[in-house]
């Protein structure tokens, strides 16, 4: 098909009917624009991935964009010589603990806020929501002192427990529960089913998508934490991956920075959240769609 002709013909069509936005030639520029944008967005990671396989001398050739032969070596050294494997395990434990804990706590709180009748309910909800105003930097100094007093410095407690409560997750679950027909809980009430049983047998199965969505958001958030672990973890053995990358920064062999090794570390740190996103992007998008209302 002669593209040029088609474009012109379509331009005429477009003018005449004002419609046909789905005709491919008309959208060709959109496709080209998208592919270019996505390529540009992904270029740095593609380059980093290539160079993570190169040796120091290949890197110093600058324009050499062929995959090098030192990939296995770079990744093994990053993981084991530079402890990224241990950091990664810590990051996994931290992220999973935060995901599970946050979801559990928020489900319980949302259950109370939607299905229980108790005094000062709105005040409690506002009290929870107001914590959106209190990100870590706003309270970092006393929080650090609190960790010292609890003797939690350099422990997993310090980088998980303060993250367990979440205004966003409570808000999202509450919204979701309120969209479930009231007759569901009424039918349960007629059978004398209690709150917890209703949560486990009815609400959680009916909220799988939302839970998965909140799980992705929380996982990515936890995995990417940097500032707080940097403040409260200062020994190698308990460090998380993001901060651990910093220790790669200065690696040098014979005066030359080992960028290939550093890039392999960067790729290692990117892969887990990327997999989570790709696998669970559907529930994530649905959850974000809901958040807008």
């Amino acid at each position, binding site marked *: 098909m002669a593209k040029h002709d088609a474009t012109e013909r379509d331009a005429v069509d477009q003018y005449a009917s004002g419609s046909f936005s789905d005709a491919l030639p008309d959208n060709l520029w959109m496709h080209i624009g998208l592919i270019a944008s996505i390529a540009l967005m992904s270029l740095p990671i593609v380059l980093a991935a290539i160079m993570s396989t190169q040796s120091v001398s290949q890197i110093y050739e600058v324009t050499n964009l062929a995959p090098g032969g030192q990939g296995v070596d770079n990744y093994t050294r990053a993981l084991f010589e530079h402890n990224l494997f241990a950091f990664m395990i810590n990051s996994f434990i931290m992220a999973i603990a935060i995901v599970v804990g946050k979801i559990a706590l928020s489900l319980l709180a949302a259950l109370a806020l939607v299905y229980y009748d108790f005094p000062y309910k709105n005040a409690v909800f506002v009290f929870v929501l107001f914590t959106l105003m209190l990100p870590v930097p706003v309270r970092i100094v006393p929080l650090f002192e609190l960790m010292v007093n609890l003797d939690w410095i350099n422990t997993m407690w310090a980088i998980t427990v303060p993250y367990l409560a979440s205004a966003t997750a409570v808000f999202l679950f509450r919204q979701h529960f309120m969209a479930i*027909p009231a*007759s*569901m809980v*009424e*039918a*349960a*009430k*007629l*059978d*004398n*089913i209690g709150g917890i*049983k209703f949560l486990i*047998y*009815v609400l959680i*199965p*009916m909220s799988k998508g939302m839970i998965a969505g909140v799980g992705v958001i929380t996982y990515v958030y936890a995995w990417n934490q940097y500032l707080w672990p940097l403040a409260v973890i200062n020994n190698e053995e308990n460090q998380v991956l993001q901060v651990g990358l910093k220790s790669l920064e200065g690696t040098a062999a014979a005066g030359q920075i080992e960028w290939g090794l550093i890039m392999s570390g960067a790729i290692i740190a990117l892969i887990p959240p990327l997999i989570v996103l790709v696998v669970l992007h559907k529930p994530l998008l649905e959850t974000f769609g809901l958040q807008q209302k």
Partner: protein
Amino acid sequence: MAEIQLENITKRFDDVVAVKDLNLEVKDGEFIVVVGPSGCGKSTTLRMISGLESVSEGTIRIGGVDVTGQEPSDRGIAMVFQNYALYPHMTAKRNMTFGMNSAGSFTDEEIEERAMSAAEILNITDLLDRKPGALSGGERQRVALGRAICRDPQVFLMDEPLSNLDAKLRVQMRAELAKLHDELGTTTVYVTHDQTEAMTLGDRVVVLDGGQLQQVDSPQRLYDFPENRFVAEFIGDPAMNMIAVDVADGTASHPAFTIPLPDADSLSVGSSVLGVRPEDLYLADEREATSPETFEATVSVTEPLGDSLLLHGQIEGHEFKIQAQPRRTITPGDTVELGYDPDRLHLFDRDTGEAIYHSDPAVSVTPPGVTQ
């Protein structure tokens, strides 16, 4: 099975009175339908019987036991919801049995047995493994009924259970509900806004408006002897025609006509409202005259309904609806001769709307409030 007694039930939501001083007795095994426009308090009444809503004042008894303060699960009731309230992630069978052992009153075999027999009654045995998403509206409705039947309650409470179905299915399910009630004989309170459902299903029908009881009667008596204007206009479709008249010495006069009221020689109540149903008006050439005289009306709108022809007629600027025979060539602007059935006249107080007089001779034979 059990009877239900509502004594002086009042329900307030903040400042709004949803139900006011309601007294009602539902007999053992009776199918009673509560009908009224939206916001009349019918659902609230049902929910108070179920215990999902507390009462502000008054007493509710089920089977002679005061259940006013009891938990819903202790009342021996089962409820069918408008949207069925089926859990989307559970199979039909699990939906029916889930929660049955929460009360601890059933063994597993008993639950199994009951689910199977309920499924048989409702003809859904082969749907039991499907989830609600794979069921049609009518099938979901049956599962919801099955859930109620499994529990073998003293009382069924149904909250507009058919209103989510399409018109054809609704008629079919209506008949099945009636049959089911004949089989099981369980006391049933059924809430609907649809007067046809109310008339066809109810042993007796309760008409509510503005949270207040208007009338409780058998469907036919409700239709023939409405106790007030609200009931007269609410029951029957198209609605009863209402005309302001002046009544003196047993005669209702209007600037355009005078109508003698049978057997009411001494009735002189002055300004009041005369009610005549469209089906009790006819075109004079359609049948032998039953009325002492006929009237001329100008047709403004014609609505062919298939089984009849609904005419909007004007007499002296007052609009009437007349149910005429079908397949007639009448067009707007035509003048027609109207007759009426003298045994089907109703008279209401102009101010209170209370019925003053029904021309049907049966009214004196059966005192109001007694089931036929």
